[in-house]
């Protein structure tokens, strides 16, 4: 890309002095609730996105008021674990500064919405006071590291979880800008910032790492730029299969962009994991596309230079070869609900949380319930990769008390919990996401109500068919991996995709475009009907539609070298 004009973001990074920019000045400007445009990009690295209430957009425009600017803040929780104390603190913050809700994300972290400019600093400071951080939860760096919150093999999980934390820590930016701007730390004179790994231009694009423990793929490991699949031999982890090049986002009408699953390229012993990470990240740093952000993710770097070239380059930088991938098997990418007992004899309760939104509603006081649980819980909370929550490490004798709290607040065994709903995911979309073309989180629940009538009609109410909706093709709720996937095109109009596998190793394909709710119901009714009639024993919906050729499987399958 020599001589070529780089993408604007690259120049912003370049003159930002290690992500400082003019954020401090922007925060002080009293004439607007927004930041200077360059700082809007930079603040992402600090864990926040500038947004505005899109519901009020046209109204305020007419009123000659600027959009109701507000900020989303994303917390860094590697592997999605928090202590009850931290939960209580975050819950409080969401009331004090946010919109009184918390969003459990598809990458096992927390998001606050509706934070106004003048509240940013106190909020971020308070989060850090709880020994949590927001640093690098967004921006062209390594994001929150995912780790399958596996309740069963407690000991194994402990180890993988610890590694997730180590990776997260290791790949954090080293600039002190964050501490200066939000935590009032003075910059120590004569200590120039250094980014040994990233360089002052950081990565060309966001970067995502996830770890999982077969047979569970609830973090959708193949959707990550870099994934590690734990390999066990007699209850000991011996190492990890490495997979690279996952990424689901695309742009309508731009053929050069597409969802892609990661390829499994080899096996490495535990002590090589960080080194592999460094190799992959530095290759992306050096070869990634810095001209066109739409083609900058690792997946495009790999497809540009070829998978084998990339593997060779990794091994060059490692100074050693990787072994052939070891055998592994995934059974599903959804969550199991209710109580299970871990090998540590503690109990784990997985609670369905519709699209990860923690809030109180009439007769369904989820936020209150979880705060009360936190007050009595001795164990911890675990966010799953499917926007759900595990109340973890509960002693036998305390189960009753916890159930009682959930019961009392109308949160336990909600009768609306059909197989379809349990397997539904939706991204945030409106009213906060600036990129949304259509509703998702606020709409999918009512669509599932209507689909459940159809499911019942065909006696499928207990079948767990992954159904996922996103408000745009960025795919934040991984709709490309839904057995039924919806992607917003325009208000009330969705593209419908079918045929992803039930365990996250096959993408779905386009079935029809621009469907209204009416169209969706009309289209799905007969398909579900024939599934009920004609499926083979144990055949999952995604596989069924492929067998019936309802969609073609032109999607590039993931490769295992």
């Amino acid at each position, binding site marked *: 890309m020599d001589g070529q004009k780089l993408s604007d973001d690259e120049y912003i990074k370049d003159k930002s002095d290690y992500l400082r920019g003019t954020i401090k000045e922007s925060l002080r400007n*009293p004439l607007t609730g927004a930041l200077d445009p360059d700082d809007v990009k930079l603040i992402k690295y600090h864990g926040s996105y500038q947004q505005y209430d899109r519901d*009020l957009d*046209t109204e305020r*425009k007419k009123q*000659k*008021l600027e959009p109701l600017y507000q900020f989303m803040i994303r917390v860094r929780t590697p592997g999605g674990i928090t202590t009850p104390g931290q939960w209580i603190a975050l819950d409080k913050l969401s009331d004090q500064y946010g919109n009184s809700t918390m969003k459990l994300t598809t990458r096992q972290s927390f998001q606050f919405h509706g934070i106004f400019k003048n509240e940013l600093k106190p909020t971020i400071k308070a989060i850090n006071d709880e020994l949590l951080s927001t640093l690098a939860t967004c921006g062209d760096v390594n994001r929150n590291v995912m780790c399958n919150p596996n309740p069963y093999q407690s000991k194994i999980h402990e180890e993988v979880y610890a590694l997730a934390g180590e990776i997260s820590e290791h790949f954090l930016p080293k600039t002190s800008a964050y501490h200066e701007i939000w935590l009032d730390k003075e910059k120590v004179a004569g200590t120039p910032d250094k980014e040994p790994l990233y360089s002052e231009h950081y990565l060309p694009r966001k970067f995502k790492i996830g770890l999982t423990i077969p047979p569970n793929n609830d973090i959708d490991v193949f959707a990550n730029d870099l994934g590690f699949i734990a390999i066990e031999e007699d209850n000991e982890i011996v190492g990890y299969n490495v997979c690279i090049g996952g990424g689901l986002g695309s742009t309508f*009408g731009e053929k050069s962009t597409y969802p892609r699953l990661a390829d499994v390229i080899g096996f490495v012993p535990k002590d090589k994991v960080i080194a592999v990470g460094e190799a992959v990240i530095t290759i992306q740093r050096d070869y990634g596309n810095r001209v066109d952000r739409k083609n900058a993710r690792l997946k495009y770097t790999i497809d540009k230079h070829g998978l084998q070239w990339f593997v060779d380059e990794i091994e060059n930088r490692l100074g050693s070869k990787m072994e052939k991938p070891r055998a592994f098997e995934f059974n599903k990418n959804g969550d199991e609900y209710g109580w299970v007992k871990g090998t540590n004899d503690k109990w784990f309760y997985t609670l369905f949380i519709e699209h990860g939104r923690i809030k109180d509603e009439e007769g369904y006081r989820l936020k209150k319930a979880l705060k009360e649980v936190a007050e009595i819980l001795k164990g911890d909370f675990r966010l799953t990769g499917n926007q759900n929550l595990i109340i973890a490490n509960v002693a036998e004798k305390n189960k009753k008390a916890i159930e009682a709290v959930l019961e009392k607040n109308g949160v336990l065994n909600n009768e609306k919990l059909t197989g379809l709903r349990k397997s539904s995911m939706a991204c945030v979309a409106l009213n906060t996401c600036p990129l949304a073309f259509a509703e998702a989180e606020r709409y999918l629940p009512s669509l599932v109500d209507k689909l459940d009538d159809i499911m019942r009609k065909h006696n499928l109410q207990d079948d767990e068919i992954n159904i996922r909706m996103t408000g745009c093709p960025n795919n934040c709720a991984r709709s490309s991996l839904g057995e039924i996937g919806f992607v917003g095109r*325009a208000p009330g109009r969705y593209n419908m995709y079918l045929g992803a596998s039930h365990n996250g190793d096959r993408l779905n394909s386009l079935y029809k475009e621009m469907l209204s709710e009416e169209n969706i119901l009309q289209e799905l009714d007969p398909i579900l009907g024939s599934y009920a009639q004609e499926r083979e024993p144990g055949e999952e919906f995604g596989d069924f539609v492929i067998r019936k050729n309802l969609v073609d499987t032109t999607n590039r399958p993931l490769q295992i070298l």
Partner: protein
Amino acid sequence: MDLKKGPFNDKQAEKLQEALSGLDSGQLQWLSGYFSGIIQNAPAVSATPQQQNTAAPQAAASKPQKLHILFGSHTGNSEGLAENLATFAKEKGIETEVSDMASFKGRNLKKIDNLAVIVSTHGLGEPPVQAEDLYNFIHSKKAPDLSHMKFSVLALGDSSYVDFCQTGKDFDIALEKLGAQRIGPRQDCDVDYEEDAEAWQNSFINALAQTSDQPAEAETPNELAAPKAAAKFSRKNPFEATILEKIELNGRGSSKETIHLELDLEGSGLTYEPGDALGVYGANSEYLIGEVLKATKLSGNEEVETHQGKKNLLEALTYDYELTPLSKLSITKYAELTESKKLKEILSDNKKIQDYLLGRDVLDLIQEEPYKLNPDELISVLRKNTPRMYSIASSQQAVEDEVHLLVSVVRYEAFGRNKEGHCSTTLADRLKVDDKVKVFVDKNSRFKLPQDPEAPVIMVGPGTGVAPFRAFMQHKEVAENKGKSWLFFGDRNFRTDFLYQTEWQQYLDEGVLTKADVAFSRDQEEKQYVQHRMLENGKELYDWLEQGAHFYVCGDATRMAKDVDNALREIIQQQGGVTPEKAEEYIKYLQVSKRYQTDIY
């Protein structure tokens, strides 16, 4: 013209003849551009001499007047094409200007002779947010006559949507409706728009080049010229202005209610300058009239003698007299009729009168001192309907036949009833867009921009006090006067009460406004007001005064104006390092030299 004479063999000539027969002039014109486009892209050799001295060079030769390119883009495609067109046109020697619909002021359409519109469609057939304002403007009754304009539209879209390129189509039709002439047909583009866009670009530029030989009969109206007819309308004989626009400016959840009004003065011959006020006649609310009729046991159909001649009581109570607020006159009259001791007692002492008036209306009076009034007695008790003044919030140079007002709606609870401001609630509740309201211009020679356009101005206008400063800004923008300007604004809450926020932001960006400081009293523990901002900026403010700045204050007289005046004195003492007496002289000097002006109420 015989094609056989052209550089073709007979077969070609016949084919062409056949192809061209039955095409109308518009289509032919489009083709000529299309061909010139082919030439541009074709290797030079393939172009025969004849072809070259047809379209392309001709375009270069004759310079049409300026081409204005307006784009409305959400994801940048239209913007990109607008830039292409601009470069292409410049190469053809055509002067061009590109504007984003997002910031383009609709009224400037009048000043454009040749217009290219490049706009996409979003939502479900809706204009991109960036184009909404202009889109609404050209579809509103404010849209100007554009018969002097030549135009063509390039519409971007996606054929998988039902309303393919709808916004482009709407612009195309609207411009035609406003009298503009289409040169070259509209081109609708699908997601792969490049080629279609290029073809359109060529034909359009070419067509433009050809039309330019006969200069368009542009009759751009001289905006600054005052209307011929001397104003025959006055306080006595108010003009019935139509309400064009009415917007509540306070965002959701606000504790304030402030409305922006746009009235149509067309045909009135009324003229005004920034700093003038508009007199407005209100009408009483049905509710209050009803209550008064109940209390007096009258029907409303009775005929009464009014200062406007004979009328039926209901009409008189609605338009010719006031029921709120209560006036001394009313108490006096009523006391005479009722011979009420209590009222006489009150009337004996001004302080008592003041206290009694506060928050009461005629209904309170009648209910507290019951008396059987006949229709004419009732009328005799009432105060004639008197107009309310509103500082004009627009500059006639900018909005021409319109006049804009900023009205704070008066509502309060007193003596067990919700009370409503007579005029402000007439505007807020009882009149809607398209209704008429009686108005007249009230000149104010003591609140005027400096004679010297270079002189700095400092404007202190919290709440509705900001109204005349919007007029100042509009004037400065149109008159392109260079002087520095500094606004101090304040209200309750930043997020909901920052009146005209986006306009101030734009004026700052454009440099029309140099500096702005704001104080929102209820956004933090301790109340903050404009005078606090002044004091914080004392040094700079004093420097401005020393540089000859004019200092303006508008708005609340009861407290704000005094606080601001004190702050000003304090600044002069501190920064000038002088005694209170000297500061007093300094203020006096500012006042006599018309550099300290106030419009307070």
